[in-house]
């Protein structure tokens, strides 16, 4: 597996799970969201990572455009037979997931440890 430098992500490996932390506290600017999407998609499509955990502990804010990238990532994961989990989402952002009912689409766990145990 090729290790690549990422501009918006901190990518590490815990066993067979790839843990992804976001480097931007606010996921809002259109250019950044496009780049972020490409970096996440590369993990699945180019690097073939099959178990992905997105850790939101450093994220204070995200727009609905960022949600769109997460939805596309979820589709790509499923198409590649992979599994995606989200963790450590602060309450205000979790409310965005419940309002949009995306908490039904994504497997969202309280923290990284709980998500890792659920794979």
């Amino acid at each position, binding site marked *: 597996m090729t290790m690549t430098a990422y501009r918006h992500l901190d990518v590490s490996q815990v066993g067979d799970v790839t843990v992804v932390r976001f480097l931007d506290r606010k996921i809002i*600017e259109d250019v950044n969201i496009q780049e972020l999407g490409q970096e996440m998609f590369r993990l699945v499509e180019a690097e073939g990572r099959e178990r992905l955990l997105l850790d939101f502990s450093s994220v204070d804010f995200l727009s*609905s*455009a960022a949600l769109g990238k997460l939805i596309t990532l979820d589709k790509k994961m499923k198409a590649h037979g992979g599994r995606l989990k989200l963790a450590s989402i602060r*309450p205000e952002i979790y409310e965005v997931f419940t309002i949009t009912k995306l908490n039904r689409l994504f497997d969202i766990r309280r923290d990284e440890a709980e998500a890792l145990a659920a794979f």
Partner: protein
Amino acid sequence: MPTPDQDWTWQCDRVIANDAAIGRRLLDDLLCQLKTLQWSPRDIFGVHLAVDEALVNAIRHGNADDATKHVQFTARVCPTKVLVEIVDEGPGFNPDRLPDPTSPGRLGCPGGRGVLLMRAFMSHVEFRDRGNRVVLEKERSL
């Protein structure tokens, strides 16, 4: 902008280029006012999200990313309420005809959640004129 009798502590009346970065600078100024007035983090988050979605809608959908067009941004703040009005030059739309993004058939669509989030996080949201003028109102939580 309605309610001229209110004692606003901060006001902003600007016509800006069709550029989200410029709009977000005005939004940051607005959020600074709410922080100074010690609004709760949840209220500030909600105003941030709703106004950002409205700005992006105006620039991208209303003005179709046309750099020659403009967006009118008006905001009023007082200790208990914030009012924002955003107007684009686009053809407008009928908000009552938007599909429900939470329906099972649309849950996997990447877009279409902006208006839902505006309505959820603000106290009142209204589309006026031909749908190109959105008024967002937030009452401070107790």
